[in-house]
């Protein structure tokens, strides 16, 4: 938990380093064919340093293909510069220059770092973000600041509720703690929800974040909607409305071979051992003890005349295994929070993998029963 002093410190830093913004029209941005290479644009007759990300976002705004962008990044050729110049010209002429944009700059790096269409800029200031967090803390005594992340023009205030929430379906040992993150990117304000899964009360073991609310406009209506959404979260004790439903889906849906394989890969690739032979033996051991269904599913696929190695991810996502999605999440969580014989580079990573799997909007085999309709 974060102290008030640390909170204030973070608040001051976030305000001080707040990204600068300027509304501009597309026609005001002047480019040369070397602008991108040299890292400059011209704005109101001034030469303004611009980052690679800025040009990338400008290209995307002007519908310039990702391929050309990547090509520039790799080889630095002038094709993109020319294309950008002509696209700006084309847009400006076709629409009379009437494309309102919002330019974002990093005051510390002293360069413009991003650009979005003005109507896509939906961000409240860092000061308001922190004030909003303070209001939540005042209104909900059980809410605490878990941490504050910042960097790259981004600020994230993570607030966690102290209540432990259980779900009947999972038994009495399974409890969760829920929280929200108030997030400011350079162009967007959003609220993410996250949860910690507490297994056998041995501490936080799984964390996941999903965007639960995105500010649409930084005007009164948009801000009122943000407050309304926070109020709605508060009413449910910050338990995401869809959480119980998701839990139901995770426990009743079989994990696909694709989902299991991804989980297995994330674990075995993380094993720490120099000797390749030993490493291989450890991998097999981990699979046998933690993911036995993986082995049996592969055997079943072979017996049906298919070689799993040649199956695509899409094909694997249609093959069921003997474990539920929840079982898989459980396994990853357990591995991420217990000391085992085998050593891992970073076992905490499994918690995030499990959380991400659980938070997937759709599990591969969720609608499998309809295949036979």
């Amino acid at each position: 938990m974060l102290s008030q002093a640390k909170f204030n410190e973070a608040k001051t830093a976030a305000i001080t380093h707040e990204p600068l913004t300027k509304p501009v029209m597309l026609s005001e941005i002047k480019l040369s064919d070397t602008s991108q290479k040299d890292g400059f644009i011209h704005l109101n007759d001034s030469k303004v340093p611009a980052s690679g990300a800025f040009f990338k976002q400008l290209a995307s705004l002007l519908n310039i293909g990702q391929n050309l962008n990547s090509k520039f990044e790799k080889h630095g050729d002038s094709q993109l510069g020319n294309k950008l110049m002509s696209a700006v010209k084309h847009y400006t002429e076709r629409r009379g220059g009437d494309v309102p944009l919002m330019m974002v700059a990093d005051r510390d790096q002293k360069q413009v770092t991003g650009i979005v269409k003005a109507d896509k800029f939906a961000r409240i200031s860092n000061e308001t973000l922190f004030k909003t967090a303070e209001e939540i803390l005042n209104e909900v005594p059980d809410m605490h600041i878990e941490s504050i992340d910042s960097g790259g023009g981004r600020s994230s205030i993570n607030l966690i509720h102290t209540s432990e929430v259980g779900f009947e379906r999972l038994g009495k040992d399974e409890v969760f703690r829920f929280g929200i993150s108030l997030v400011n990117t350079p162009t967007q304000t959003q609220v993410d929800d996250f949860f910690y899964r507490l297994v056998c009360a041995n501490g936080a073991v799984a964390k996941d974040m999903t965007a639960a609310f995105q500010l649409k406009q930084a005007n009164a209506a948009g801000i009122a909607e943000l407050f309304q959404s926070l109020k709605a979260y508060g009413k449910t004790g910050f338990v995401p409305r869809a959480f119980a439903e998701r839990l139901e889906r995770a426990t009743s849906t079989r994990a696909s071979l694709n989902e299991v394989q991804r989980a297995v890969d994330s674990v075995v690739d993380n094993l720490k051992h120099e000797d390749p032979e030993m490493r291989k033996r450890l991998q097999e051991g981990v699979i046998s003890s933690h993911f036995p269904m993986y082995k049996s599913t592969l055997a079943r696929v072979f017996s049906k005349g298919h070689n799993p190695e040649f199956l695509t991810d899409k094909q694997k996502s249609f093959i069921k295994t003997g474990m539920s999605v929840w079982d898989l999440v459980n396994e990853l969580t357990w591995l991420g929070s217990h000391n085992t014989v085998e050593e891992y580079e970073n076992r905490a990573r499994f918690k995030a993998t499990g959380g991400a799997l659980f938070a997937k909007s759709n599990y591969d085999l969720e609608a499998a029963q309809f295949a036979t309709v």
Partner: protein
Amino acid sequence: MIGKKEKQVRKYFLQEFGGQVPAGKVLDLFQNFQTNPLGEGISYSLFNGVIKKLRGTQTLAGVSQTSRVVATPTAPAKEVELQIVKIGSMEFPEFKCFKTGTLLDQLFSDHEDGGGIYGGTANIVIGESGVGKSTVMLDILAKIKRIQPEAKILYISSEMTRNDLFFYYRKMPMIAEVPTLLLMDYIQSGFVKAIEKAITGEHDVILIDSHQDIIVKLKDVLGWKSTYAEAWLTNLVIKAADGMGKSIFCIQHMTKGGTYVGSTYLKHATTSMMEMKFGPGNRRYLEFTKNRRGGSLVNKPLFFSMAAGEVLYDQTSWDQLIRAEEVAHTEESRREELESEFDDLFLSAQIQTLPVEEPAADANKVEVEQ
């Protein structure tokens, strides 16, 4: 052969104008005719037909040259005396202000501490069917009576019968003390008089439910043209509000697409327009889309619900909205600050400006510090 009703009209012109048709619009003549006992039960179309006959007769027979001449559109209009008065020298009525004791008072007026419903106002209330127009308005009347027992309130219902009202009363016992006039009682006789008397009578706050329905009845039952009926009722409302200092509420209808149904004349002449709508999750809310007494709170939704027999306004979401307005205002200032800092950092005169064609310097070596 002249019918009984035509005889009535002819008798009227004989009594009032010596058998001649005076100059002026037929609509105006009809309006005056309606105030005469002979006007009862005569439709506008019959009246107009008789006038045509009378005027034709007069012309053909040369009975009354005068009458024909005055009826000509090119005839000189009646002399009008312009009354131009300095605003400060105008005579203003003593405005009464009525309070409901709810959050709604603030929306009605920002000229009075705590708000309230000013006298001398004509207000339109619109909303789709079932949104709660009559319920909210009856609640307002009942609450005014509760806070200011001396206030003379009146509910004029053209649509509802006693039986319909019973169910409102059962739902909202607090409306027991609301004086009510059921226009349906006068549909056979005295309809126009009843409306006129009720609107221009002794009451301070009058709810007309509904403006459109009265027009329909004037049209269908009495045979008035709808434009005439509309103008007549609107003039009456404006006369009562502006000339007599009353506060009049006219419930109006909306199309399913949410468009206002009614005359533009009424829409423009009124002090305020309050709209009731279904919001997210079918929550009901009201908002003013126009308010000459409370401009600062226009277009701000106030959610409401029914509980314990009365309308409750959602203070929490209202406070949130007001707070959001304040925050949005602060945000605007902050964006201006950030833009100003941007300009200072990148666009100030101290930054070296170069022509577009000129080769750019190494990005890492550019000095933009001031």
